[in-house]
């Protein structure tokens, strides 16, 4: 029962962060601010969803895989934000 509450809270929080990231992507005025919204919020979103689904993972390997997914998304988001930011900076004047 307590685990169910953890799942609901974590997945809801994750969905909220996804909402924040998507709204930022759509509404922020330029490339670099959108990039900021995207990488920070989506990162947390996936992490919280993975955390919320941990109690429902069938086995130890399933849980480990969930954590690996989150760590990989962390790594990927951080790197991609760096690379895209540099590409955006090099391809035009900064605001």
């Amino acid at each position, binding site marked *: 029962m307590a685990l169910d509450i953890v799942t609901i809270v974590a997945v809801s929080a994750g969905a909220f962060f996804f909402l924040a990231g998507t709204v930022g992507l759509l509404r922020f005025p330029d490339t670099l601010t959108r990039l900021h919204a995207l990488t920070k919020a989506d990162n947390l979103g996936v992490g919280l969803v993975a955390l919320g689904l941990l109690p429902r993972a069938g086995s130890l390997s399933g849980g480990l895989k969930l954590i*690996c997914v989150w760590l*990989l998304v962390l*790594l990927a988001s951080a*790197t991609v934000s*760096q*690379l895209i930011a540099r590409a955006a900076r090099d391809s035009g004047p900064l605001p």
Partner: protein
Amino acid sequence: MTFALALHIALAGMMLGLAAWTIAARETFAAVVGFVVYGLFLALVWVRLDALDVALAEAAIGGGLNGLLLLGAAARLRAAEAPADAERPGASLRLLAALLSATVAAALAAAVLLLPEPAPTLAPAAAANAAATGLANPVTNVLMAFRAMDTMLEKVVLLLAVVGVWSIAPDHFWGGRPGVRHQADPQGTLAFLARVLTPFGIVVGIYLSWTGASHPGGAFQGATILAAMWLLIMMAGLADTPPMNARRLRLMLIAGPAVFLLVGLGGLAFGAAFLAYPAAYAKPLILAIEAAMVLTVAITLGLLVAGPPERSAAP
């Protein structure tokens, strides 16, 4: 109208809309991004349809290698974009092409929708005969035992594709290295990513190939991930692309089809037919073939994305 049904309709609608936009997009780059996103959605759909092996292949190829290949192509075509735009076929020709495509799609849809209920299928027979090889994954059984001939011929086709890509090279670069020598700061972000991600990717790739025996996965999906890690290392400048005339490279390229062929001929000599596995040795033979296939397919996919040689073999 349950919520799940509404979700399915929404997902299908999104994909159709995205596909239409991808075809209609003016810029090559925009169309490529649309296509890569389409591949991501398609992986979701495959999971929803319980086709997890296909979903793995779609995620690996559509999400990774396809994007790499097509974005590189879009970058090369950028200089030729304006004159290519000027040569677009007229509206009537495009309308005719659209009508033809729509007719083919409608015929396919009709064929699927008009299938008798229950549709004729060999799936129960394949699932029932899983004991023949000792592998639990019915997809792997079909690929490696019941229709092994098709899989072997596919690997030969991949080899021919690599030869085809190499043949585009200018004569004086034959035997050389594909692509440019990538420079990246060894302390920089891309090199960091390559160093951290690659060992992990190798583990996941080998895990996916190994687990294909009993769970969704398989040699092809694992090999795609290994190829992607190799490409990452090359793009980060940590290793150079291999020269086309390297003996080890060519040996590894033919290892997969060669082992497959050897086992097949062994089946002809010692067993009932070409590619027949003796009952006691079915599983070890299949695993041996898969190991060789992982190596070959990984190198093949990496070379296909790397492209034809563009410089000499000297480092």
